[in-house]
Structures are given as C-alpha cells and as structure tokens.
C-alpha cells in the first residue's frame, strides 16, 4: 500500500525519519489520517509527538520520507506555504498576540491580505467582521472581542488560538495539548468544541489526559521512541500489552 501515489487520506505519512546528530527522534514512521477523523497521538515524554507535528507543519525538516496532504507533498515547502495549503497548528503553550485584542488576533489570522501589499490595502469590512463574529461565538469568546488577549484566562487563550486556526478553515487541524491547564468545565466545553470542529475536516491532537482522550478520540496512536507502538480505538490500545509495558513498566 506504500506504493500508492494517490490516496483518499487527508494526510499520509510514509517512511518519515528525522535525526538530530544521529539521534532518531522520529524513526521510519507511517501514519494515515482520514477526512472527518479526530485522531489522538499519545505517548511518554520524548516519544517524538511534538516532533511529528513540527515535521508536518514544516518547522523541522525531515531527514527522509514523505508527508502528503491531500496528495500534495509537504516536505520541502516553507511553513507559510503549508499553512496556505490548509494545515493549521496550535502550539503547546498558547501562542497568541497578547498585546492585541481578541478581535485583532482573529483579524490577523484572517486568511486574506497575507502579502505585504495585501496587508497594507486590507479593509476590515462587513464580511471580515461577520466571519470574526462567527468564529468568536464558536470559541465562546464573542463577549470578549475588545479584550486584550493577554488578559484572558489560560483556557480562553487556548480557545482563542483554536479560533485563530478555525478562521482559516483548514482541512487539517493539529492541536498540541489543547486542554493543558484547563478547569474541568473548560475541558468539557473544549471536548464539545473539538467534536464540532472535526466535522468536515481532519483533526490531529496530542494529549496526555486519558479521560479527555477517551472522550474525543475516534482513533488513538501510541508513539514510543519515534515509532508507532499501537494504533486503534481507545479500548484496543489501552489493552495492548506493549502499551501497558511502556506506560507501567518503567
């Protein structure tokens, strides 16, 4: 099946390897993601989870292997080109513009006026405002549009960053620990949000909180030392002896 050049997968990663001075952080990885699928990657610290996201979004360059997104090769593209192709990524610590308001944060992320001259000519018209309002409602921040983003709670910052991705309407959404530092109630709301936004696109999540994973994941992959240990639904993975060994054996 590795020989197929065209697939129905949103994302297909094949034989992906990256090494840092000989240390293989990701080792010959094969991974596929369907449309409408919400896939969670778990694994102990240093398993290479964040590195996989870095590789997909172009932050780290692969040593070898291929990453195909909607049948376009992503390796070798620059970061902004990957984003424009339809891949959005949320970072582990909320990465928002603290000095701008919620509205301005969303506006900066709005996918028009991305060139130098486009941004000089950009106008905040009805269409832009409507889109911003729609997204703000979805991420439960419609009451806080004029608040400076630095003043939001930790959970709200996480949502804002998700909103900044949603406004670009990406086909693949990658979220690195989206509920870290959230209250129980915020976790519930986030789970709901993720379920809603995974419709019509693919979502790849890295998460440690097993309860949360169980609630949202369609499929789970366990990564260990840069390799896939197990893939499947939550129950299969949880009962896999290799997984139990890795998590409890140490």
């Amino acid at each position, binding site marked *: 099946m590795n020989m197929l050049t065209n697939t129905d997968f949103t994302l297909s990663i094949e034989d992906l390897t990256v090494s840092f*001075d000989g240390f293989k952080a990701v080792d010959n990885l094969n991974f596929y993601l369907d449309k409408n699928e919400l896939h969670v990657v778990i694994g102990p610290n240093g398993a290479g989870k964040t*590195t996989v996201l870095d590789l997909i979004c172009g932050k780290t360059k692969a040593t070898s292997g291929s990453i195909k997104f909607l049948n376009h090769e992503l390796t070798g593209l620059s970061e902004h080109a990957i984003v424009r192709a339809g891949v959005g990524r949320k970072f582990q610590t909320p990465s928002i513009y603290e000095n701008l308001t919620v509205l301005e944060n969303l506006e900066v992320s709005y996918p028009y006026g991305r060139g130098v001259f486009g941004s000089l000519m950009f106008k905040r018209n009805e269409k832009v405002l409507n889109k911003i309002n729609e997204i703000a409602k979805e991420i439960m921040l419609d009451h806080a549009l004029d608040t400076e983003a630095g003043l939001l709670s930790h959970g709200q910052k996480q949502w804002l960053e998700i909103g900044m991705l949603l406004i670009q309407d990406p086909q693949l959404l990658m979220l690195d620990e989206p509920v870290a530092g959230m209250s129980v109630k915020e976790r519930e709301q986030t789970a709901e949000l993720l379920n809603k936004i995974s419709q019509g696109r693919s979502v790849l999540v890295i998460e440690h909180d097993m309860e949360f994973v169980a609630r949202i994941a369609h499929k789970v992959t366990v990564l260990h030392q840069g390799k896939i240990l197990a893939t499947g639904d939550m129950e299969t993975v949880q009962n896999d002896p290799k997984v139990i060994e890795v998590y409890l054996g140490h």
Partner: protein
Amino acid sequence: MDGYTSSELVSIFAMQGFAGISLFSVLLLMALGLAIIFGQMGVINMAHGEFMAVGAYTTYFMATLTETYFPAFMPYYFVLAIVVAFFVSGLLGYLAEFALIRHLYKRPLDTLLATWGLSLIMQQSFRSLFGAREVSPTLPEWLLGSYQPTEMIDIPLNGMFVLGLTTIVTLGVYYLMFKSRWGLRVRATTQNRVMSDAVGINTKKVDRYTFALGCGIAGIAGAAFTTIASTGPTTGTLYIVDTFMVVVFGGAASLFGTIASAFSIAQAQSILEFFISGSMAKVYTLLALVLILMFKPEGLFASKVRR
C-alpha cells in the same frame, strides 16, 4: 602577487603569519570571553572591548608602579600584571552584571544598548584617569627582541609569549567549562535554565560568575594587548567588531569553532595587509565574513540541535 619570487612569498607568508599570531591571540582571548557570555546568557556585551582596555590600563598602572617603587622587580611584574588584570576586569564585570545585566536578561537588544552606554562611560573614565593620549607600559626585557631561524624570517618574542599565554588560558577555559563541576552547572544552565533552577543550581550565581569570568578573560587579553600595541581610551572599540565576527563566524557555542575562526580571521587580515593597504584588508575580511554568514548564519561550526 606578481613580482615576488616563490621563496620571497614563503618568507612573506611566514612573517605575516607570525605577525598574525599576535592578532590571533588577542582576538581569541577577547572572543573566548564574549562567547562564554553570549553562549551562556544570549547577551552581547558591547562593553567587552572596554573590559580589555581595563586589563591593558591595569598592566600599564602596574608597570609604572613597579618602575617607580620596585625597579628590581621589573623583569617579573608582567606575570603578576596578567593576574591582576584578570581580577580587576573580572570584578568590574561582576559589578556590571549585578547593577545592570541581570535586570535585562530577557531583552537581548536592550542589553546591547545598555552595555553600549556602559562602554561610553568606561571610555570617558579612561580619558579622565589616564588622559586622552595612548600609553604603553615598559615591558620586561625578555619580552623584547626576536628569534631569527633564517635570514629572512624574524619572529618577535612577544608574539610567542602571547601565544603561550593564550594557549594556557584556552586550556584553562576548556577544563573549567567541560571538565569541572562548575562548568557542568554552566552548561546545564545554558541548556535548560528552568530545570537547572529546579535541581538546585543557583543560576543567578552561575550567570554572575560567568559574566565576571568573560570580562576577566578580556582583562587578560588587555594585558597581552600591551605587548603588541599602545592603549588609548578608544582601543576597545577598535577590537569589538572583529571580536563579534570571530564569535558569530565560529558558532557561538563551539570552543573549537572560536579558535578556528579567530585564527582564520587574524591570518586573512594579516596576510592581506602585506599586499594591499591595511584598510582594504579589513574591508575584504569583513566583507567575506558577512557574505559567508549570509549563507551560513549559524556559523561554520555550530552543531545541529533538537529544538
């Protein structure tokens, strides 16, 4: 290079090569100090040249003192002066870190400006204390003269001495950073400040002593500098740009890179100087460096790290 026979060319290269060794030594000592500070805290110390000048003025002061009060001690004072230069510059560096640098660690560009301000104040202090004229200490006799292996080649002894001194300091730095317990703490802090704090390393203390050490080595560079040129209030600024280039070109984190880069820059400049005017030699060297850095911004010897 027309008009020179091949044996003349060999001699020219040898002579200029040895002349370049003095420059190499001073640049390397300066760069070691700057690189330690930059590697550790990501801070560029624009006053680093002035810390070198402090070392040079200290040597001058010691020489004058010895000449006036203990003439019999003249042959030996220089060794003591090196040690004193290290501690005087180091102490000033310690104070500068305490008063200034530690407040600005998260703002590297601001540190650059603040240390520039510090350098202006230090320059003016030199002028007020030692006058605007350039001074040079009376050197012990064993540092003067030269060694002539062939008729055409003439190796100055001061150059050899400075090279020896640089070797000792470099080995010392290597031992301190890579073999000692203290160096382990410094490297730990460089790699992960938060974690180092958590495992009980006093990172603030590490910072302060690292900064002081860097400045102290600049002081030694200053003592070495007095053997090859005279010292004025603006001496430091003449060397600071070259020193930056050494550090950046060598890749800030690599000791070997710093040595190789100091050597190549000093030699390129020194050998070019024979064939074209000194100012154009400088233009070509700096231009080459800028061009190389445009294509390899991480420096020539940086290692690949997972970030």
